[in-house]
């Protein structure tokens, strides 16, 4: 029983991290209909930012996550300005191609500049600490990442549904031209959305180096999982993304433990297929 609860708990915590990674992708996807293939690499960049801050300036990831978020916000905004902007409304798939190129560039620039070494921050505030609760082990880093992640996702949700800006974003997502006619500066909205999406994954990446090693390939699998989560939740739905992320975290942990670790991603991707076959627009999609 304790084992079962422990597995659930582990799943839930990785689910919460996935939620934060995916929500960034989700808003970009939902608003601009752009598959940002470089999303995993945004995560990697954030991890490097946080790692170097920690390594050189001895800043703890808990603080440098803000810097990482801000940095990737800028990376996202620049990506939009320099690349995505030119593809919008011209050809549906070209943004995919461009972001794929970008992911290759980011990955290899990091490889080139920082070498392929994997790097891990030691002696962080959270690193390696655990809490024990009724026989369950709660690793503090994951716990904090989970909490931060929920908080950020919550903020994004409120932003999108309660504020004027959120409305403007939704309107832009549905009909860019009509939104412009309402006085919404869609150019700014796009820039913001891309930045915001980057910032979310940036915060996630900023927190990670205290327990996951940074290397140029680290984002790949995260990016992959984020795609599946966003689609499973339903494009444009933040609550869907959250639910899907938690589900995927749970399924990953349960299948990994009760079936076999090799099959955990088979189960995760299988879950997506099952969900969309039952609900073709994802859990909460339009």
């Amino acid at each position, binding site marked *: 029983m304790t084992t079962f609860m422990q597995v659930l708990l582990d799943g839930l915590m990785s689910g919460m991290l996935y939620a934060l990674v995916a929500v960034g992708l989700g808003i970009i996807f939902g608003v601009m209909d752009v598959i940002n293939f470089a999303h995993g690499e945004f995560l990697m960049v954030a991890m490097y930012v946080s790692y170097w801050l920690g390594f050189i300036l001895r800043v703890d990831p808990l603080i440098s996550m803000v810097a990482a978020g801000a940095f990737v916000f800028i990376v996202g905004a620049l990506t939009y300005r320099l690349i995505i902007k030119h593809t919008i409304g011209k050809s549906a798939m070209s943004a995919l191609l461009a972001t794929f190129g970008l992911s290759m560039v980011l990955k290899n620039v990091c490889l080139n500049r920082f070498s392929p070494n994997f790097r891990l921050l030691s002696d962080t505030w959270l690193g390696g600490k655990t809490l024990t609760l009724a026989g369950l082990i709660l690793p503090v880093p994951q716990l904090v990442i989970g909490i931060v992640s929920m908080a950020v996702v919550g903020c994004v949700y409120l932003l999108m549904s309660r504020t*004027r800006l959120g*409305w*403007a974003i*939704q*309107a832009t997502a*549905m*009909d860019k*031209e*009509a*939104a*412009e*006619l*309402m*006085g*919404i*500066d*869609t*150019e700014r909205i796009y820039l913001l959305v891309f930045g915001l999406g980057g910032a979310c994954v940036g915060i996630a990446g900023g927190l990670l180096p205290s327990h996951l090693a940074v290397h140029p390939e680290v984002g790949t699998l995260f990016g992959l999982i984020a795609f599946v989560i966003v689609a499973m939740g339903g494009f444009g739905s933040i609550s869907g993304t959250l639910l899907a992320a938690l589900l995927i975290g749970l399924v990953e942990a349960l299948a990994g433990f009760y079936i076999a670790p090799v099959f955990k991603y088979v189960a995760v991707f299988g879950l997506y297929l099952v969900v969309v076959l039952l609900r073709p627009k994802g859990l909460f999609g*339009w």
Partner: protein
Amino acid sequence: MKPFLSVNEIHSGYDGVPVVHGVSLEVFRGEMVCIIGANGAGKTTTMRTICGLLHPEKGTVRFKDQDISRLPASRTIRRGISYVPEGRRLFPKLSVSENLSLGAFIEKDKREIVRREEEVLTLFPVLRQRANQKAETLSGGEQQMLAIARGMMSRPELLMLDEMSLGLMPSLVEKVMETIVQVNAEGTTVLLVEQMVQEALEISHRGYVLQTGRIVQSGSAKELMKSDEVRKAYMGM
């Protein structure tokens, strides 16, 4: 008197393919002006150029004595131009009332938005019943009304309507026309594009006839209605 809106020799089109070749027109404050023309004449293109969705390759658009040719649509609406586009362009996943409040996006005061919504719903009572329905599930006519209503939410000084009668039932066309007249009488300048030439000319002060991207005729609505070419080409007589 200085024109409220003046369009000078604009050339405009899509992807480098010109559609409008040197159109000029003027609208004075408080007027209702109507542009008529066959399919594909460039009426919509002209309207889009005025409101800033397109930018003229040559020529200028001046509004309230300022050059707005290069302003994007999101800025022209702040100067007081509201364009109700052809084909409605509602926000399909948002409810009717959400669509309406977005119409007043440039207004920041929430209470003011509610007040305007109230006003507009009085003009279009059908929408009141559907206030919480998603826009995409409205019938064609309901959607058209919502589009017009949304266009009026920003309290524009110049309201541009593109084929607003499209798909409306006869009694509604009548009603919408009456509403427009009323809106115009209350001080909003109106620029119309219409296929229902007769009805449009009946309510307008002046009119322009557009043919393959050029103004071929203009004058007071009465003159145009009497003109043989207009009658033959556009009124089916």
